[in-house]
């Protein structure tokens, strides 16, 4: 399920945006810092510069004026009172010098009358006019008279020459005044020269604020009055200058300097803010750098992004191929770790997908059931079919894919198809329907349908099993079944009859078995008695013989006593008596023992009494009682039964009988014809806590064919030769029923036989 994300951007746009943003930020920070730091510095420098330049100009003006003052002073000193007017005129003429600095010099009386005048050559014609003129009303004259020292006068129109003039006057002696006219053009050209080399714009203004000279081609001269500019007012008032002033629409940093002599002001201005070339340059550099790097970045960013996306595009392309199912080559690698990671992961994913695909395909095709995949969104055309399908419907895969079932002729009729689909919808899956194989043979199919809704496809999976044969078999079976029922019924009747007969026979057999068991018991008893008799016979005989010998010895002694006893005769007698008594005692004791044992066995054997006893008791007793029989054979019996620890609450009689049977068996069958043999009797407690008794021999063993039937009645290999075929059966019965245990046999032909008895400590209680 894909999430609908917010709109996404191309990598190129992102990179470009990133670059732009980085540059923007960098320059904003760096450039801003530079500007913030540098611009105030530049402003400060500019202000310092401009103040300096204004001061320089003023200094120049003052210097020039100072020079003129000196000339005037010098003249004043050299003037002689009492000189004639002519002399004075001549002197004044000379004092003018050749330069343009002074246009006219007048010698004036204290009343203001012009006494002598020095003029430039070309103006000397006016001298007559000038002499006798009254200058008492002029400000300059009034001031020099009042102050009685050298004074400078602001520009004015010279009454004597009509030109704009700057005047300087100084008292000479006590009653004369020297007044000189300086053409303003001279001063102004001096100033012009001084300010021409300056970086600032300079305006020379007089005390009334009128502009006298400027650095802009005289644009402001005679047209602008600067008196009311805050900067000029501040300068006049001696206050601190404002930081900037405006003139003709531009802003300047001001520097104002005052010429004390003339009360003129030199107003200098360096363009402020961005008008200032240095500030502008700084800003332009910063801005230029910003724009430059932005451009470079914006130019390069698409290139870089193209390279990055190239790697990505290749990965995407490769993934695309995988999606379309094409097999393609290597997964692309690039310089970028993350992309390589993606590439590697995609490769793994693709491999995994391919493997899964292969797995599924294998499973699909291995499935023994015909399976097909149809596209619901595309008229149910077949997308895929497995091998089983091809076999079932006898069609080739190539001819089936891309066509619908109807097209292929899978259905016998459209109605059948619709009905089948309908049924599958209602029953929810499994339907039975007829289909047509590719070879024209109709088959009955059991079809399972399952829908598969995917993200971009609606698929239907059909699994079909050809049940034509099965159905036929089923039908046949049903018929047979019916038949069978009848047959079974009659058979049952027959069998019932047989059963009855068999039951009768069985009953007979049981009775006979009981009889036989009884007779075996009697026979056993008989043989036991015979054995006992035989056994007793010997010790009793021996005893009898010994006692007889004694009697003889006594008789002999009696006889000897008659004839005289010798010591040797007594010794002899005693010896014989001793010997004889010994033998008799031994043998009688033995007989007594035997009797006791036999009693025991008899009691045990016939009465089947229950008591507590140690296993070893019974084993010993039985072995003793069989002693005589065994003695006649070359076979030996080895006992390995612990004296205590194997306590039983059971029937010793049958147990002993069983043991006896086993031993007898060994003797009779195992060692048949052999010269030697060993019977090992072992008693132990088994893993279940039961008492176990093993009787094993190393005889000829029991044939394998006989082994399973060895405990059955009448199984014998010695029929007619002393075997009744019941011994083991009786033993088996006794162990299993009376004693409640198990009796098993293991034998290897040629090696030996082992019988194992496992008994519970407590024999089952009699019912």
């Amino acid at each position: 399920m894909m999430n609908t994300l917010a709109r996404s951007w191309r990598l190129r746009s992102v990179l470009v945006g990133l670059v732009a943003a980085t540059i923007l930020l960098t320059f904003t920070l760096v450039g801003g810092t530079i500007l913030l730091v540098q611009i105030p510095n530049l402003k400060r420098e500019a202000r310092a510069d401009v103040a300096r330049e204004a001061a320089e100009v003023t200094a120049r003006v003052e210097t020039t004026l100072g020079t003129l003052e000196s000339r005037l002073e010098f003249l004043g000193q050299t003037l002689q009172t009492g000189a004639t007017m002519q002399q004075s005129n001549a002197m004044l003429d000379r004092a003018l010098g050749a330069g343009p600095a002074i246009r006219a010099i007048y010698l004036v009386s204290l009343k203001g009358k012009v006494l002598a005048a020095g003029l430039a050559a070309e103006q000397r014609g006016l001298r007559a006019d000038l002499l006798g003129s009254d200058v008492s009303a002029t400000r300059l004259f009034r001031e020099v008279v009042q102050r009685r020292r050298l004074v400078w006068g602001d520009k004015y129109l010279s009454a004597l020459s009509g030109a704009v003039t700057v005047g300087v006057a100084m008292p000479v002696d006590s009653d004369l005044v020297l007044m000189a006219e300086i053409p303003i053009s001279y001063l102004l050209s001096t100033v012009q020269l001084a300010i021409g080399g300056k970086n600032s714009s300079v305006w020379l203004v007089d005390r009334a604020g009128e502009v006298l000279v400027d650095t802009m081609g005289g644009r402001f001269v005679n047209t602008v009055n600067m008196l009311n500019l805050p900067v000029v007012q501040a300068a006049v008032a001696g206050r601190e200058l404002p930081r900037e002033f405006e003139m003709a629409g531009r802003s300047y940093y001001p520097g104002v300097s005052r010429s004390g002599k003339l009360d003129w002001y030199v107003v200098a201005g360096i363009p402020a803010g961005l008008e200032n070339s240095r500030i502008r340059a700084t800003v332009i550099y910063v801005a230029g750098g910003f724009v430059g790097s932005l451009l470079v970045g914006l130019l390069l960013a698409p290139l870089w992004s193209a390279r990055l996306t190239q790697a990505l595009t290749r990965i995407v392309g490769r993934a695309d191929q995988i999606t379309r199912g094409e097999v393609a080559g290597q997964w692309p690698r690039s310089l970028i770790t993350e992309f390589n990671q993606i590439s590697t992961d995609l490769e793994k994913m693709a491999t995994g997908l391919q493997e899964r695909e292969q797995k599924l395909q294998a499973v699909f095709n291995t499935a023994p059931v015909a399976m097909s995949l149809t596209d619901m969104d595309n008229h149910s055309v077949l997308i895929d079919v497995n091998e089983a399908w091809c076999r079932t419907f006898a069609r080739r895969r190539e001819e089936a894919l891309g066509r619908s079932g109807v097209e292929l002729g899978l259905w016998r009729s459209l109605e059948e198809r619709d009905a089948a689909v309908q049924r599958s919808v209602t029953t929810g899956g499994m339907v039975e329907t007829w289909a047509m194989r590719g070879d024209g043979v109709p088959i009955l199919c059991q079809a399972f349908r399952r829908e598969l809704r995917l993200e971009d496809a609606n698929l239907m999976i059909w699994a079909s099993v050809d049940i034509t044969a099965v159905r036929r078999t089923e039908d046949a079976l049903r018929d047979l079944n019916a038949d069978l029922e009848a047959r079974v019924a009659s058979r049952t009747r027959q069998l019932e009859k047989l059963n009855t007969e068999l039951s009768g026979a069985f009953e007979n057999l049981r009775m006979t078995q009981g009889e036989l068991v009884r007779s075996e018991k009697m026979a056993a008893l008989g043989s036991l008695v015979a054995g006992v008799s035989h056994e007793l016979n010997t010790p009793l005989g021996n005893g009898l013989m010994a006692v007889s010998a004694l009697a003889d010895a006594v008789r002999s002694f009696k006889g000897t006593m008659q004839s005289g006893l010798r010591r040797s005769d007594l010794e002899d007698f005693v010896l014989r008596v001793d010997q004889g008594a010994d033998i008799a005692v031994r043998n009688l004791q033995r007989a007594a023992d035997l009797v006791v044992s036999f009693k025991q066995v008899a009691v045990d054997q016939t009465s089947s009494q229950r008591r507590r006893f140690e296993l070893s008791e019974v084993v010993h007793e039985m072995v003793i009682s069989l002693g005589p029989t065994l003695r006649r054979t070359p076979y030996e019996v080895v006992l390995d039964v612990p004296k205590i620890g194997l306590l039983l609450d059971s029937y010793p009689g049958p147990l002993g009988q069983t043991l006896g049977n086993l031993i007898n068996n060994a003797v009779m069958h195992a060692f048949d014809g052999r010269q030697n043999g060993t019977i090992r009797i072992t008693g132990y407690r088994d893993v279940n806590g039961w008492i176990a008794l093993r009787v094993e021999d190393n005889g000829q063993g029991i044939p394998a064919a006989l082994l399973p039937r060895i405990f059955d009645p009448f199984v014998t290999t010695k029929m007619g030769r002393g075997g009744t075929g019941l011994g083991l059966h009786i033993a088996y019965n006794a162990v299993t029923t009376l004693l409640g245990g198990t009796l098993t046999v293991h034998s290897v032909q040629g090696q030996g036989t082992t019988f194992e008895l496992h008994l519970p400590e407590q024999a089952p209680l009699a019912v």
Partner: protein
Amino acid sequence: MLAIEQRNAAGGILGRPIELLVQDDGQNSVQAMEAVRALVDANVDVVVGPFTSAMTAAVLPQMNQARVVIISPTIAGEEFVGKDDYLFRINAAAVTNAGNYAQMLKLRGVHKVGLVYDLDNRKFTESWSKAFEAAFASIGGRVVAAVPFESNREPAFGALVAKALVGKPDGLVFLATPVDTARLAQQSSKMAPGLAMATSEWAASENLLELGGPAVEGMLTLRVYNRDDPSERTRLFLEAYQARFSRAPGDSAVAAYDAATALMEALVRKSSGESLKEALIRYGPFEGLQQPILFDANGDTNRTMYFTEIRAGRYALVK
């Protein structure tokens, strides 16, 4: 300038500030024409100036062609009177003034007059002297000498005065700049001390006082305004002017002030669709510094002038 600065400080015309562009005609007609062209090219609404008839004559054709109103505060030449053009005048006509002068002189006992006039401003001086002569003659006076000169050539003023004194006038009339008048007066007081003198309204300025000194004592002149007017308005104006320019205003300054006042008022009252020329004519009288300004259909006004005599270095009103 002061008027405009004051107006701007008071909020401008209808809320819009007035921009002042200044050009110097340098009393040179070529320069004057260039100056005017520059102003016209800068799309000025109105031109205040020039201050001399010569210059005005030079630039009037241009102004008429450009249809831009030009107000001259000072010119009084006859040729400018009664013409329906774009020229507006603040000053009284020279002819009128000259007539008044004639009468005043006669009143003061001057019957014979020697005239010295500057040809560099002949438009004014010639029409003035002609009018004066006629007026003077009509009341029994006589112009015994008329001495022209050219100011730019720096003439010897002594010689000029001498020439004017031929014929023994009992009064000299100078039609010249304040400076030239002062120089003429200087020569006159040397050569003919105590002789009555008069100078046209053209020379009435503070410079005359300073440069003339005692030589101009008793000189008669016509002024555009009454300096001793006790009215508040005059006093405030004088104070403002002094504060702004560190000197007292001359006649041309006051006339210019009135010109500026009138045109600014006209601009305010002018309705859209009306030209300034029409507004100036229609919406008068405008309140000048000391008198109302009313333009007739030709842009001329009839200005009340004040006769003054220089006494003890000051202009004193002559009743």
